[in-house]
């Protein structure tokens, strides 16, 4: 049975960050990265990356382990600072904003962590309600309804009172996804949504992401090792190599590439 569509839009508190009031109405790309550099000590992870993702578009970022895919997502949401370069979210440069403005921008972004990162002292219901409690003026009953709706959308409506430790990895990812969607984000960042899951659960998560993308006109970046998943859910694919984008385009563009690394990557994953 297909879960019901999300309907209620939570009223988000107004703040001083006037720059993002008309966030989604902006003509600028949802995400625009330019000349992004990031190093850890002597190890260069990102070496001048440039990428753009438009509203309603899904970009899959592929690459070998340690090529900075997760770092890229953490830079976009401001969990890490780039050494240099520009990150624009709907035209708003986020590398030079104050913390209050950055937090306002973060409210418009949903982030699914690689291991879901659910708060292990809170129940499934409380995890999903966390952003609603913090950032909306919803009453307790409105919050409960919204949480049920979100969990129903990811097929977890029967597990409200369970603790994260009592559910499987795939279920944790679903709850993490519901939490990421709680504030109806304009941008969704997914860090390895199918990693460590069996093929059937991976397929279910892919279907879920596709469904949510159809229902909400979000810009998404999906970091993954799973080429099949990338092919299923992404409009475009960017392959990272040596700290930069080696090739960017549709899956067919990648398949046609004569580059040795690209061919090797696709062959290994096929």
């Amino acid at each position, binding site marked *: 049975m297909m879960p019901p569509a999300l309907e209620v839009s939570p009223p988000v508190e107004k703040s001083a960050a006037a720059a993002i009031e008309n966030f989604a109405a902006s003509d600028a790309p949802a995400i625009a990265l330019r000349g992004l550099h990031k190093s850890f000590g002597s190890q260069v992870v990102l070496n001048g990356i440039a990428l753009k993702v438009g509203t309603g578009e899904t970009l899959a970022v592929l690459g070998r382990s340690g090529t900075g895919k997760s770092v890229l997502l*953490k830079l976009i*949401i401001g*969990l890490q600072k780039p050494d240099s370069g520009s990150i624009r979210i709907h035209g708003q440069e986020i590398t030079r904003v104050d*913390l*209050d403005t950055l*937090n*306002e921008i*973060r*409210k418009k*972004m949903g*982030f699914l*962590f*690689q*291991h879901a*990162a*659910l*708060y*292990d*002292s809170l129940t499934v219901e409380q995890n999903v309600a*966390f*952003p609603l409690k*913090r*950032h909306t003026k919803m009453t307790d009953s409105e919050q409960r309804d919204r949480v049920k709706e979100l969990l129903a959308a990811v097929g977890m409506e029967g597990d409200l009172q369970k603790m994260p430790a009592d559910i499987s990895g795939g279920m944790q990812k679903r709850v993490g996804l519901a*939490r990421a969607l709680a504030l109806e984000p304009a941008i969704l960042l997914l860090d390895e949504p199918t990693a460590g899951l069996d093929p059937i659960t991976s397929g279910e998560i892919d279907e879920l992401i596709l469904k949510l993308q159809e229902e909400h006109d979000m810009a998404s970046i999906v970091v993954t090792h799973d080429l099949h998943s990338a092919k299923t859910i992404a409009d475009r694919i960017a392959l990272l190599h040596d700290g930069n984008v080696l090739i960017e385009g549709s899956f067919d563009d990648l398949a046609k590439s004569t580059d040795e690394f690209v061919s090797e990557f696709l062959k290994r994953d096929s």
Partner: protein
Amino acid sequence: MRSTITSVWSLTNRFLEWFGDLGFFGWQVLRSAVRRPFEGRELIRQLDEIGSRSFPLVALAGAAIGAVLALETRSSLVQFGAKSMLPAAIVFSIIHETGPVVTGLVVSGRVGAGIGAELGAMKVTEQIDAIEASGVNPYKFLAFTRIVACILMLPLLTLAADFCGVMVGWIANTLVEPISFHKFIHQGLAGTSFNDFLAPTFRTSVFGLIIGMIACFQGMRTQGGTAGVGLSATSSVVLSSLFVILADVILVKVILVFFS
């Protein structure tokens, strides 16, 4: 000789670096504290977690100290013919020193390890990143609330330890030589003023600041997996206990100068 100098230099550097990081952490917490929202619910949860759940252990430690003081001091005072001073010796030493220090050390063990391990586990499982990614300031939500709860709860826990110590001291004394509680307290408090209570009790707020600050700092800078969490819990207890003892020495001198 050269290697010894290098080791000392490296140790000094690491200590100064740790202190610098702690200072920066303190500044981040302080800066976050003046911004809305003020995290009332989380603060109340932490007051309960740190205060009421530490109460049994602190009360037990206070009671044990009272009993030991009564038993140990009696024989010495009898030897010197100063048996009548026993209530004063028990009450004075509990209120002035043993109550606050024992409370500080017990809380640094229980709460310091708890905070260090909890925040450490949250750090390595990216839960702190998730809090930050959802637009919530973790310095305020996680650290400020715990530090304030420690600051507010330590004096109350100290009063509980003092009360249990004095009560059990009286009971232990009465078992050997019956004395009414009224007389025991009257003799115990003879010659003491309100300042004798106030300053030693409220110096434990400083212990609370130290315990909360160090435990949150060590927890939130955890690196690695489960080994890192264990290390954070251990270092939280060791460092907060060490700094509680050091602060006690300094504060006793300050209290003697300003409140005596």
